[in-house]
Structures are given as structure tokens and as C-alpha cells.
């Protein structure tokens, strides 16, 4: 059993949990994810590893309420346990395999949206600790929905906040902020990484293309097993079918067919809404 040692609501719909999973905590690297199941009848839900501590034997997950399964996760309390936690899954971020030589001259810009902000933390932390230049843009609809600003602020050189309604930081989308940083404010980068809703990653990629900046994106496709066995997670990358769980989850943004990925993500939408409805009535 995988005990929840700490739970905290970051916003009314985003929850942070620290969970006992010693084997995963020891093996995890930035960019990887895990799969949880709340109980015997629950779905297998993929979540990015938002921090890990091999010493304590715990991992951190940050979950946003979307449908029935995320609701079941958020309903768990401190002291409760997940039925299953399996991982770490997927490949670590590309930079984990890069030499010090290469990283020395690298300047990273992370573009984080919504619940995708939390997974940026272990990545920025990893780079920052190794002295690599890291800036981060965090975007949310409104001020109250910004998460992880303090944590990420402590592991990067510059932090830029933006909100759709202008209630905090820059008034506008993350893509506009990035454009401004590079074209007007004189910042320059060698690599961008975007994590967030598919639509935000699509437009971040378009912006980066205009700026001539390479970008990696972390794809949150539908998944069942997460081990390469089912193909539910297939995406078209550079014209070829790839499995996000074993070939990704991070891919070169330029190569990803986002429209197909977004369409495939919607496959169970009607069903899920029914599920959630059922559960709210209960």
C-alpha cells in the first residue's frame, strides 16, 4: 500500500500529495510519470512525478480535478493509501542525458500552464542545481489558480507570471509573454520546454518555431498500462506512430501532430462526464 503522508489543496481543484513509494522515489528522474489506482475498481491514472525524495522514500503528485478518477484521488486524505502506485514510467527529460559540457552553455526557458506547472519543478530544480541557466514562465487563468510559484521561484534565475485576466503578473497568454521576453526584453534561450494543456503546448510550439527556438513538450495522452502494451497513448511524431508512454512522454514539439493528439484525448469525454455526474449524485 502507498500511504499518503501529506495532502494539501493548492487551489479548490488542485491537490498536492506526498506518497510513500520507496522504490519509485529511488529510481525517479525529472520528466517521468507514474500511474496510480485509488482502489480495486479504479482507473489507472497517469500523473507526472512532481518531486521525489529517495531518503524519505516518497514522491509528490499534483492532481487537478477533471473527471471521476481525479475526483477519487482528491477525495483521499492524509493517512489513506493508494491501492497501486507504479513507476517511474516514460523516459527522463532529454537534458538528464546531456553532458556537463553541453549543459554549460545551455539556457532553458520552461513554459508552464495550469496543473502542468508542478512537473516543471523537478526539472528546473535538477538544472538549477547543476548551475544551468533556467527561466520559467507560469500561466494560469487567474491569480488564485497560479500554483508552485514559491517552489519554482527558488530553483530558477527568473520567474515570469502571467494570467489571462491580468490579476497577477503579465496580462495575457504564456506565448505572448515568451514572445515579449525574446523579441523585446533581450532574453535569449537555447531550449524551451512546455508542460501544460495540449492546446497551450501546441501554441507554445508555434511561437517557438517563429522564434527559432527548439522546444520539447510533455504529452498527456490517454493511457491504460503505461508500459507499451496497449497503444492507447499513440501519437504521430514526425509522421510516425509513437507510444507516448514508452517513447515519450517528452517529444520535440515541432514534430508532434497536436490536432490528432487533442482529438484522441477527447475519446472518452462523454463517458467521463457521465461518470462524474453519477458520482456527484451519489
Amino acid at each position, binding site marked *: 500500500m502507498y500511504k499518503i503522508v501529506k495532502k494539501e489543496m493548492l487551489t479548490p481543484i488542485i491537490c498536492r500529495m506526498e506518497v510513500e513509494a520507496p522504490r519509485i522515489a529511488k*529510481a525517479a528522474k525529472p520528466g517521468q510519470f507514474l500511474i496510480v489506482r485509488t482502489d480495486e475498481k*479504479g482507473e489507472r491514472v497517469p500523473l507526472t512525478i512532481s518531486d521525489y525524495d529517495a531518503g524519505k522514500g516518497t514522491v509528490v503528485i499534483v492532481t487537478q480535478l477533471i473527471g471521476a478518477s481525479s475526483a477519487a484521488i482528491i477525495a483521499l486524505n492524509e493517512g489513506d493509501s493508494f491501492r*497501486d502506485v507504479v513507476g517511474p514510467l516514460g523516459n527522463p527529460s532529454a537534458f538528464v542525458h546531456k553532458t556537463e559540457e553541453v549543459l554549460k552553455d545551455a539556457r532553458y526557458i520552461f513554459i508552464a500552464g495550469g496543473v502542468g506547472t508542478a512537473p516543471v519543478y523537478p526539472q528546473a530544480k535538477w538544472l538549477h542545481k547543476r548551475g544551468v541557466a533556467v527561466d520559467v514562465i507560469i500561466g494560469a487563468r487567474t491569480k488564485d489558480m497560479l500554483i508552485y510559484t514559491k517552489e519554482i521561484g527558488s530553483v530558477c534565475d527568473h520567474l515570469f507570471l502571467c494570467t489571462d485576466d491580468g490579476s497577477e503578473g503579465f496580462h495575457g497568454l504564456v506565448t505572448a509573454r515568451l514572445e515579449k521576453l525574446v523579441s523585446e526584453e533581450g532574453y535569449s534561450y537555447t531550449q524551451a520546454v512546455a508542460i501544460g494543456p495540449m492546446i497551450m503546448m501546441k501554441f507554445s510550439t508555434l511561437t517557438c518555431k517563429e522564434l527559432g527556438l527548439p522546444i520539447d513538450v510533455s504529452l498527456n495522452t490517454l493511457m*491504460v498500462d503505461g508500459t507499451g502494451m496497449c*497503444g492507447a497513448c499513440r501519437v504521430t511524431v514526425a509522421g510516425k506512430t509513437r507510444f507516448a508512454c514508452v517513447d515519450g512522454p517528452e517529444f520535440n514539439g515541432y514534430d508532434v501532430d497536436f490536432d490528432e493528439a487533442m482529438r484522441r484525448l477527447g475519446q472518452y469525454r462523454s463517458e467521463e462526464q457521465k461518470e462524474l455526474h453519477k458520482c456527484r449524485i451519489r
Partner: protein
Amino acid sequence: MANKIPRVPVREQDPQVRARNFEEVSYGYNFEEARLEASRCLQCKNPRCIPACPVGIKIPDFIAQVNAGDISAAAAIIAEDSSLPAVCGRVCPQETQCEGSCILGVKGEPVAIGKLERFVADYVAAAGTPSEGAVSRPSGRKVAVIGSGPAGLACASDLAKMGYDVTIFEALHKPGGVLEYGIPEFRLPKESVLKREIDAVCALGVKIETDVIVGRTVSIDSLMEDEGFEAVFVATGAGLPRFMNIPGENLNNVFSANEFLTRNNLMKAYREDYGTPIHTGKSVCVVGGGNVAMDAARTALRLGADVTVVYRRTEVELPARREEVHHAKEEGIQFRMLTNPVEVLGDEKGWVRGLRCIRMELGEPDESGRRSPVPIPGSEFEIPTETVIMALGTSPNPLIANTTKGLEANRRGCLVADEDGRTTRPGIFAGGDAVTGAATVILAMGAGRKAAAAIDAYLKSK
């Protein structure tokens, strides 16, 4: 040598009824039926059936005990060679193995060896006869088994009986491999049959740790260096689905059979009270002709769809067990032979609306003697359908080979191992689908048992 008694038919759920539920199709023999069927066996001096069973079960001997009414004695004879009789009795392709070689089959119907084996296993289980238990004293030496399918379970139970301290590591949240996630409930009941056989393995002292992906959560090297395992048996199966690489294959509602079956079997999507969704729409096309295709088709039927199986050769070449094809037809599944998909057609929103196919004919026999299908030019046509399930075979997962130094795989991704499961790295053994590519339950089990003997010899000489 004429045999007057006809093969005793097995009672089955009515096709109309079972097409709408997930309960087991076949009821199996009762005591009287089993004894009558057993009496048909000629007790051949040189039985042709034994060498045709991949694990060499002493078929006439166990059948003689059934005939005599001593079912426990029959079970003991089977147990010498097989650790999963209730499973194999249900899913072995008997017509090409034991029963295919039975002398009675030359002129009439072979002895129903599989059904008798199943009867014995179910009967002793229902009677609550305790399993043998660990036979030798624990040696305290640790062996790791990776994967809990038939190969892993068979290897683990033999090693436990020899006194080793065995832990199985399983990537999924439930043990059983394909028996759990692939083969449906209506062919192999999970609680009453599979769980029982797995519990029997655990009763021997085997530990099963689920949610551990070797190559990710831990590595073979860390198991051997940090956790004290002296030998490792890799039984990770062949779980990677193949697609056709035709246009439209990533449209919504195109599934691999693995996804479809995993949602339904492992995740129990067919049950209202489980969280995982599945949908078929009103019509489903399944592409392929093996057991996997039959299982996907019959599952889709039970979920309420009209189902068509599309296969590029003819009925004779269908690789599925004959019984499954027969059952599928009885249940109302349509077959389109000599037909091959060329494109999946989608609607404006990206959902499947049809399958574009081409008609095939059988050409000249190739080197293997099989007549390969060739497309008939200009014969394309469309089958309207809401869902397409690809059941085209699977290949081994490269994860272990990629994360273990010195462990070689061949071009098809299969681990290189000799007859007894020795891989290219000392102390690491492998068997089952991970070595052979997709094969059968009984072959995987046989490989697991051979490897157990080889591991024992290796550890004793170390």
C-alpha cells in the same frame, strides 16, 4: 480397436444467451460424463498423445485414474508435469497438440483430453484437496522471476518446491499475464479458476510483488547486486501490439486488441461498478484470425455490437483454436475471409466510420508451403463500422533487453536463450513468449519448468 462410445459432448451455455453475458461458455464435464469419456481411451502401449503435449503429461495414466474414479490420483499424475491444469485444459489448442495425435482421431473423434484435464483440476479444487505444499526444505537462496504469466508462474512454483526463496515481480497491478489481461472471463474465469491457480503457487511460498516494472522501478542488476537475488528468470511475454501502418489507424475508436481486452479484462470495463470506460458503437470490425482476434470479437459482441472478423486468408488457415472459431460463429459473429484492410475511414470529427478493404486470393505456396494471400487489383470495397480492433499479433517489450548489459535479443526483439532458458548472461534465464514470440500458454509453462531445472543446476554448481 473400434470404440463404440461417441465422444461425450460438453454442456455449454446457449449461444443466444451467452452472447450477452461474460460467464463461462463451457460448463465442463461432471463426474459421470468424465468417467464415460475416460473409458473411451484405449490406454495405448505407445501413446501418440504424450509426445504431442509440450509438457509430456502422462495422459493415459491420468485418464485411467479418472476411469477408475480416483480423481485425486489423476490430479497427482497431472501435477508431475503441469502446474496450471485448469488453465491448460481450457485454453490449449488441443486439436493441434494432444488430441490432434490421439489414435482415436484417425477414424473418429479423439479423446477429449483437455476437457478431462480441466475436470480433474476443477474437481479436486472444489473438493478442497490441499495442494502438495513445499516439498523440500528452504535453502534460503533467492531467485527473482520477472513477469507473472504462465512461464513465470510455472518456473516460480517449481523453484519453490525445490526450496528456493522466490519473488515474482509483475509490472501490472494483478498477476497472471495474458491469462489475466488478455483471455476473457468467458473462456477463463478469473476468480474461480485463475486466482485459484495463482493462490496455489503462493501457497508454496512464492511472493508476488505487483506494480514493479523491471527496467524502470528496479533493474536486473540492482536485484542481483543490492537485493541478493542469485539468479533471475525473465518471463516478460510478448506484449507489444502491432499495427498495420495503413492510413486512418490513429482515428478515434481504432484500438489494438490488447487495449480493448485490457480495458475489459484487467480493468473490468464491462462492469458498471468499475471506473474504466470502453465503447464499441453498434458495429465492430476485428482484423486478424488468431485467438486474440476471436477474443476481441466475442468481447465486442458481448458489449452489444454487431461484429465482423476480417481475415486475409481462408477459414482453413485461421490460426485460432478451432473451438473458439466454432463458438464465435454460433454466437453470431460474421467472418469476411480473403479480405484485407487498406484504410480506416473517418468522419469529419475524426471518428471511425468504415473500413476500406481489398479482396484477396491465395497465390502459389511459398517456401514454408503456405499459400500467401495476394490482393485482387480493383476489388476494393467498404465495410461501414464504428470501431476497428487490430489483432495482428504482438512482439516482446524491449525494456529489459535495453536496460540489462550483456543480455542479447535478436532482430525480432526476442531474448536469445537456449533450450533450457540460459541467456547470453550467466545467472539470467528467460523463457515463454519473451523468447519465442507470441506462442501458447502450455509452451510458456514448459519453458518455465525447464528454466527452473536449469536454474537449480546453475545454483548448485555455483
